[in-house]
């Protein structure tokens, strides 16, 4: 309301208008019945007014009523008399059904926004609520989610149908437990493969953090597993709850605790101020030594946060298992963007850092540390054109080093994949 009236939220008091007009942005009509019309709005992003996400009329606009009903407003029967007697709403019970979000969607208010509304030639309706895709085949009476299928009722093991809007992020495919893979996502934190049947298509997965763990972290930046105890999992988050916290589970992801804060930054604007953490790496011989990098120019990510001083980006290091952290950029160039790091397979004290072009155009390259990321030195054996190193991979089979290079505006000679078979000597 404050948004539309142009006043501060703190001063709005009880100055409410007597009527409102939601910001509708979609309208569909049943091809077989022009009297059956649906309209929707995005409460969250268009500053519209709830409750309800989709309205419906069956008599050509004479009477409208909520076609989708989700969340605490409806389960608590709020304003029930109004809907039943004033608006003549046929039903006021919840009529949406979600996959892994079901519990959360039952207890939240209807403030997520409907992202789209479509209808097909049969009159089937499709909407997206809180990034889930729901379909109604009964003219809006019921709306089950259709993009995730539960293996069996109550199992909380899901297979995707390819319609997901979840942000996909880092995957950890070697986790110390054969067949277990960990999948990071934005806003839906951390998942793992639900069984070891690698031939199953699609792969079944189950969430181990966040909607299954209210109050948990939302958006994993990077995940790592302890080298000798696979039940110990570490995460660091790039936005939302627990952003920049270093979190640890000692029971394979069932429970989580903050054990440190990688960077000292106020918990303001947790949604928009994104910190791009990458390459969370644990020394396999000395597991208390952990490093992670904060990337200032995240080329393969959604853009976002860059309010930190240049000096705050780069490599962070802990020597006590993640309790305390220090910036460890000694030897790295000012303005460079550490995009990824890699431990040398046979010597964890040797670390390589791939620096892509900095946000302000600083061109740097590939760096190496021989003291577990305490100090860094530039590798000067790269071809002269190659300055923007987006990623590094060291083949554990033979220690060959590969780098992924190039930038959006760079030349072909600056891009491509380069390989060294002699520890970057040539």
């Amino acid at each position: 309301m404050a948004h539309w009236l142009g006043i501060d939220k703190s001063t709005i008091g009880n100055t409410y208008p007597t009527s409102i007009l939601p910001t509708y942005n979609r309208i569909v009509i049943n091809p077989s019945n022009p009297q059956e019309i649906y309209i929707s709005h995005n409460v969250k992003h268009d500053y519209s007014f709830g409750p309800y996400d989709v309205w419906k009329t069956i008599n050509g606009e004479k009477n409208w009523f909520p076609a989708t009903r989700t969340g605490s407003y409806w389960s608590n029967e709020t304003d029930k008399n109004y809907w039943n007697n004033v608006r003549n709403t046929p039903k006021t019970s919840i009529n949406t059904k979600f996959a892994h979000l079901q519990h959360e969607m039952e207890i939240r208010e209807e403030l997520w926004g409907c992202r789209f509304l479509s209808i097909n030639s049969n009159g089937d309706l499709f909407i997206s609520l809180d990034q889930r895709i729901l379909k109604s085949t009964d003219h809006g009476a019921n709306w089950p989610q259709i993009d995730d299928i539960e293996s069996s009722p109550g199992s909380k093991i899901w297979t995707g149908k390819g319609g997901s809007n979840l942000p996909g992020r880092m995957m950890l495919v070697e986790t110390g437990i054969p067949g277990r893979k960990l999948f990071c996502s934005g806003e839906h934190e951390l998942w793992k493969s639900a069984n070891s049947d690698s031939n199953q298509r699609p792969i079944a997965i189950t969430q181990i953090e966040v909607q299954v763990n209210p109050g948990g972290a939302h958006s994993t930046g990077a995940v790592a597993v302890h080298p000798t105890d696979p039940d110990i999992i570490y995460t660091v988050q790039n936005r939302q709850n627990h952003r920049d916290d270093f979190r640890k589970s000692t029971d394979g992801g069932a429970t989580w605790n903050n054990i440190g804060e990688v960077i000292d930054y106020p918990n303001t604007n947790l949604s928009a101020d994104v910190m791009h953490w990458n390459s969370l790496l644990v020394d396999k011989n000395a597991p208390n030594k952990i490093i992670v990098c904060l990337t200032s120019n995240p080329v393969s990510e959604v853009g976002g946060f860059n309010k930190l001083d240049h000096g705050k980006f780069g490599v962070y290091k802990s020597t006590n298992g993640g309790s305390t952290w220090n910036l460890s950029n000694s030897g790295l160039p000012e303005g460079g963007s550490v995009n990824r790091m890699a431990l040398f397979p046979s010597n964890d004290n040797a670390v390589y850092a791939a620096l892509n072009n900095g946000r302000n155009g600083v061109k740097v390259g590939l760096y190496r540390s021989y003291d577990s990321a305490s100090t860094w030195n530039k590798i000067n054996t790269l071809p002269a054109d190659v300055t923007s190193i987006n990623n590094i991979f060291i083949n554990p089979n033979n220690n060959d080093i590969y780098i992924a290079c190039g930038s959006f505006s760079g030349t072909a000679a600056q891009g491509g994949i380069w390989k060294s078979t002699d520890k970057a000597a040539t």
Partner: protein
Amino acid sequence: MPQVWQLEVSKKNNNIIIATVGRHKYFLNGGAYISRNVGTTWIKVRKNLANHDRITDIKTDPDDENVFCLSELVSVWYRRQWYPSSTTPSTGDEHFYILNRQTSQKIRPSNDTDGATLIQVPSSWSGDFTRWKTIDTDNNYFYLQNIETGMYFRPEGDLDGDDLSQRPTNYTGTYTQWKKVTTPDGYFYLQNRETGMYFRPETDADNAIVIQRPISYSGNWTQWKFEYIAGSASKENFKKKVMLPITQNLLEYIRSHLLPETFT
């Protein structure tokens, strides 16, 4: 690939590299690329991917060189099986190269005529002459049909050393039928239904002819694998669509051949 975001080498096979390529000012074909020959040649992977050029992570499977998975910016995770050597190909990967275990080279008909001999060619060749598909018959036997010529192949006779040559698809007898005889490590023999024999390239040279050998020849020379070509089934349908004459059977043809691919 002027802007490579990431690459990984398979833990199971140092020749396999997967990479993601970002959008570039002038190079718009970003996405996931795979190579089986240490980066000499690449194939882009995009079938069924919602955001094929917005890949945030890509990983090879630690246990299976034919599997990798990737994350997309707004559509989470995908698992892809590709180029399976002796297992079921992914949906859409219908065509394959036939590679010899000993020489690592491919086979093709020497030209497009009835009776052309089968010859060995370098593994870098990838045109439709080197591509094949199976057409099942019964009891695990199948024809091997060349994608360029549309013909099968068979041994010329029953003798050890007979050439293998190309024949039209009206040669439906047992001479043109083959079955796989598996070995423990992913390769297989191809045994003729009529003669019961295997086949091999005569030498390791380019253009060496392919000849029939008894099953006592059990070494690497008589062992083969199929390297499946990602998305090749849709390519074949495209070719058929272009070449299809307008006939009264058109509707039936579309119903039986094109609709399933179009609508899956």
